């Protein structure tokens, strides 16, 4: 959370920082999401064939669990960035823009705190799992590798909420997320529109 405090005096630098961070994170998230879903689909389809003609792949369940977790927690932060998280937006949409902006900043601040707390505790959970040194039953992998993505996902979500606050402070209109002005906007496929 300390990153943005030093830059607050010069909005142009802040804007640059915001844009750069957005691009790097976007490329990472999109490639993780696409490859995980593709890998999951291939794995499960191959497993159906394998089960029918030979025998089930012994690590299929474990790897699919890993891929689901990777997809979920990457999707959490991507969802924040693209204003895709499910919420009940009826009142917010009905507000005049100025009031909506105030509420958006409050919502993002609270969300950033909640996500920050989840980041911290999932990091603790990860450290704890590393200390215990359990291994997974099928592949004999250290089980903490499954949990690495959780603090990363929550942490990136925290950053995205902070970026939304910055966006709302430097732009005139209310912004739902750093990349999307409102949910009603068409989403650009995979690209960054900053």
């Amino acid at each position, binding site marked *: 959370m300390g990153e943005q405090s030093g830059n607050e005096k010069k909005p142009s630098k802040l804007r640059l920082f915001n844009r750069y961070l957005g691009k790097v994170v976007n490329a990472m998230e999109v490639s993780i999401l696409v490859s995980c*879903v593709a890998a999951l689909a291939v794995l*499960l389809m191959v497993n159906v064939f394998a089960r029918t003609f030979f025998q089930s792949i012994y690590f299929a369940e474990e790897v699919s669990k890993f891929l689901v977790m990777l*997809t*979920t927690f990457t999707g959490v932060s991507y969802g924040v960035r693209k204003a895709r998280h*499910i919420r*009940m937006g009826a009142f917010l949409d009905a507000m005049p823009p100025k009031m909506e902006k105030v509420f958006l900043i409050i919502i993002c601040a609270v969300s950033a705190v909640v996500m920050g707390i989840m980041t911290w*505790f*999932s990091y603790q959970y990860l450290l704890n799992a590393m200390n215990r040194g359990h291994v997974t039953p099928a592949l004999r992998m250290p089980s903490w590798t499954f949990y690495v993505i959780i603090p990363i996902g929550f942490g990136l979500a925290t950053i995205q909420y902070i970026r939304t606050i910055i966006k709302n402070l430097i732009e005139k209109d209310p912004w739902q997320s750093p990349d999307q002005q409102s949910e009603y906007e068409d989403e650009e496929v995979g690209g960054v529109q900053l």
Partner: protein
Amino acid sequence: MTLFGISLGSMLLFGFPFMVTLLGSLILYVYVYMPDFAPKLVTTMVQQVITGVTPPALVCVPMFILSASIITGGESAGRLIRMIKSFVGHLPGGLPITTNASCTLFGAVSGSTQATVAAIGGTMRPMLLEAGYKSSFTLGLIVNSSDIAFLIPPSIGFIVYGVATSTSIGMLFLSGIFPGLLILVMFSAYCFVYSKIKKVGVLPKETWAERMTAIKDGLPVMGFPVIIVGGIYAGFFSPTEAASASVFYALFLETVIYRSLTFERIVDSFLQTGVITGVVFILVGAGQAFSWMIGFMQIPQEVLPPLFGTDPSMLRVILIVVVVYFVACMFVDPIVAIFILSPIFQPYVVSAGVDPILLGTLVTLQAAIGSATPPFGCDIFTAQLIFRRPYLEVIGHSLPFLLILILATVILVVFPQIALFLPNLAMGG
């Protein structure tokens, strides 16, 4: 308890994301009332989130989302509509009936109402408007017919209910088919009468040659119900296997047979699937943490006994559960509602001897109805998002459909065999 309720309610109403509403209220509660244990409890929450997203049965959800996403980007929905329209288009109410039937059949590919609204509604609404139907009628029709898709397997509602209560997902899938068809018939009858009274014009009758072409074009889409329903009914596929088979079939259909998908489209459907999976699964995880915590805080033990009384009858349990789900889904996403409420009600349901599969069907039906019901049903916002029409226009014509759906619930409670005979048949054979 009061603080917990206030934070939950206000965050919900002011448009906080559901995941923040659930996790944030819990964190606030533990830090205010149990500061000494707070770090330990929040760590447990993290653990519960992990437990929530990793049951093996949930792996089929991204696969069903993926096959629906592939199909939505391609031509299947359009071909399906053309096929049905060629048969019923010339009847009074032909186009609304086409909408109903297309939503039902598309439900056999997609597991969520949102995907169905987008795929079928996007094509049908211009046609309906051109034929002279009022805009609010078309929106009410599309939103409510998409509910049928939530009952036709695959359905994310059934999957989540099955995971939350350890009920067989395959059997739940089978139980949804006939209630879905029942609602299809009732909606179609209403559309027939409505169109007759309003004297909306009908389409010219198509010749058998045209119908045959339409069947030839659209028939491959019917492979999905064969794979999913047939595969599960025959015991050949588990739900996860049926899901991956349907992804395979969707890719085959759209790339080899219809040749409608480009590589970019496919990559985009993977991305969209990843995002929807993330957004849905974090809710399931947060829901798991939430339901664990309210169990820990013993909230169900405080709230439920006065509601159920001692030794409640089967009918009373069913009525309470149905009403609570209906109301809850008017406010929150059905997935969250099912995941949090089901474990709470489970002990009463078991002790009153209610069939878990029947209850699963009723709960999923209520989740579908609630999410299409004003003021805050989430399907309404989906329709607003997709069609860009004002709120009042979207809900303007929902009352008749709502009444029909409530009637369908009553019929289902009185004649549970509508839902149960197919699963019983599958288990017997």
